[in-house]
């Protein structure tokens, strides 16, 4: 019914992704790496939004599913000849399995979703503080296992020799898929039911909605999207288990909080804005020219600016930069609203 009116919810984020990709194509290859990172992180943040935004339940664990996706896509695409060199302890089955780029991404999404299902089955009963701590525990466990278990990946070492297939387009398409899935879920009856449980759990339950099932569904979808993002990520950079842990969790959560965790637009705007600022200060480590004067900042400034920004947004504007609103077309008559 109102789908047409809600289409800007889809188009504005999608256009933002497209715009980022187009600008990214034009800039120098040095700057392009920032755009690539940004697009991958848009995908991760949108994946986070699908669960956190719609359910209102906190998750520190989503980077686990990014890591699972990265491991899946990475292990299955390292050329067979180089597998034993990078991953000497790899189990026999994985040693001889090789798939193409697109298949590896699809499998990454599948494994991410499956991981989320396994984790979510017990954990979706929790909410609030308990959910925060339990998902944090999931992150620590996944990271611990991936760091030390050499039968499923490179262990502590970097995932080198993964074919670098992620260019601007692959990254943009990944982010775009996440945005479309997030929109489709949000406007589906399941998304609405989960939104209802966020606004008033008791009323939603009284209306016959199973909070547990709806949360689990969102968790699995967002886990799948996070897995996809992880697959795209590992095709971009030689990732390391240490890089898929607390820091990335913090940065992506910061993006979601800064943008406004309640809306898809907020997730995308947050990812773009924070990445813009973060990239600016990272680049300024090597010196940048701003309006005529040369600026050089010490390493680590980007993280500090980000931390301050996140704290300020939490204190001053808890619903984020976008203020918890989606962009929609104006209604034809004011009476319809009432």
């Amino acid at each position, binding site marked *: 019914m109102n789908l047409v009116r809600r289409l800007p919810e889809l188009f504005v984020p999608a256009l933002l992704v497209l715009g980022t990709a187009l600008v990214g194509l034009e800039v120098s290859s040095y700057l392009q790496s920032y755009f690539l990172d940004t697009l991958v992180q848009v995908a991760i943040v949108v994946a986070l939004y699908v669960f956190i935004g719609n359910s209102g*339940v*906190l998750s*520190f664990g989503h980077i686990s599913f990014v890591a699972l996706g990265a491991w899946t896509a990475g292990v299955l695409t390292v050329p067979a000849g180089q597998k034993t060199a990078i991953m000497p302890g790899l189990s026999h089955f994985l040693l001889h399995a090789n798939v193409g780029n697109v298949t590896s991404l699809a499998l990454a999404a599948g494994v991410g979703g499956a991981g989320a299902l396994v984790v979510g089955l*017990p*954990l979706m*009963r*929790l909410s*609030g*503080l*308990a*959910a*925060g*701590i*339990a998902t944090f*525990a*999931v992150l*620590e*466990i996944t990271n*611990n*296992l991936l760091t*030390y278990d050499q039968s499923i990946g490179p262990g502590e070492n970097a995932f080198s020799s993964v074919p670098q297939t992620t260019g601007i387009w692959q990254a943009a398409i990944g982010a775009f898929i996440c945005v479309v899935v997030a929109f489709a879920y949000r406007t589906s009856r399941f998304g609405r039911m989960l939104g209802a449980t966020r606004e008033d759990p008791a009323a939603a339950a009284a209306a016959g909605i199973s909070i547990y099932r709806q949360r689990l569904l969102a968790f699995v979808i967002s886990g799948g999207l996070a897995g996809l993002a992880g697959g795209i990520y590992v095709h971009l950079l030689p990732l390391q288990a240490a890089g898929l842990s607390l*820091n990335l969790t*913090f940065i992506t*959560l*910061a993006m979601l*909080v800064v943008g406004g965790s309640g809306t898809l637009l907020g997730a995308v705007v947050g990812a773009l804005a924070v990445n813009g600022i973060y990239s600016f200060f990272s680049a300024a480590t090597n010196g940048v020219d701003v309006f005529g004067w040369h600026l050089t900042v*010490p*390493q*680590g*400034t980007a*993280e*500090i600016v*980000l*931390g*301050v920004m*996140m*704290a300020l947004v*939490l*204190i001053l504007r*808890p619903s984020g930069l976008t203020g918890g609103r989606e962009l929609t077309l104006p209604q034809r008559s004011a009476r319809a609203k009432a």
Partner: protein
Amino acid sequence: MTLAFLNLSWPALANGLEFGGIYALMAVGIGLVFGVLRLVNFAYGQLIMAGGFALAFGAQWGLPNWVSILFCFGVVLALSLLMDRLVFRPLRTHSPAVMLVATFAVAFLLQNIALLAFGGFGKTAGALAYLNAPWDFGGVEIKKIAVIAIVTAAVCLGALQLLLTRTSLGLHMRAASMDFRTAQLLGVRANRVIAGAVVVSALFAAIAAVMLSVAEFQVTSTFGLTDTIFVLAGVVLGGLNRPVPATLGGFSIGFATGILGSTLPANQSQYLQSFLFAAVIVVLLVRPNGLFTRGAAAVERL
């Protein structure tokens, strides 16, 4: 002489008790603030890190040990009050989940400030390293720090118990942690109670920093981080709601890591973290009030 029947040596046991004691103090520090503020402080580890850096600077400036320990207390206390004033107070009315994210942000911020200011290699706080030397107890050699840690922890926890049960501030803190609103209505001053909890928790962080710096005298931006994560796990395992279970949880985790770390081979102890957090998840699901609490309703939280 060994504890042959447990396949355990006295030094390993002392190691376990040492970490048990330190972690118990940290657990109480986290538990106290949770009691009155409903706030799980992820940034607790960064308080300990700041204390570590204070000790390192004390050593660098050639201060006597007692002065640099005082300096460490001052820094941790100041930082803790600042954190409460700037971040936790404005967020007091928000949901625990928002506050959790905020402390996460503070932790990340402080860690990166330390990284920026002191570099990746950090600084050396070696002034207390002589405490790693052993004392001889009738043929059994036990590190001095282990004895000191156990005694200090016992004394501090005893003092806290007196504070909570024998003073009006303690009474107010206990009341506030049971029901903040009602306590306020009955004349308990919120800021005073919260400041009390924050100060005690900071003192315990400083003590933990001093004792941790003995074994780990290279202070970097991640000083105390792993310990805090383990203690958080322990506090949840024991029962976040009340100090005695929280302390027991912290102590058990410290004891287990201390003993297992020195007896298990590396290829097994590296998965310790996974077992620990798997246990956290199971406890959250099965006994949300913690392992060491009795009955479903946790009546008194402090």
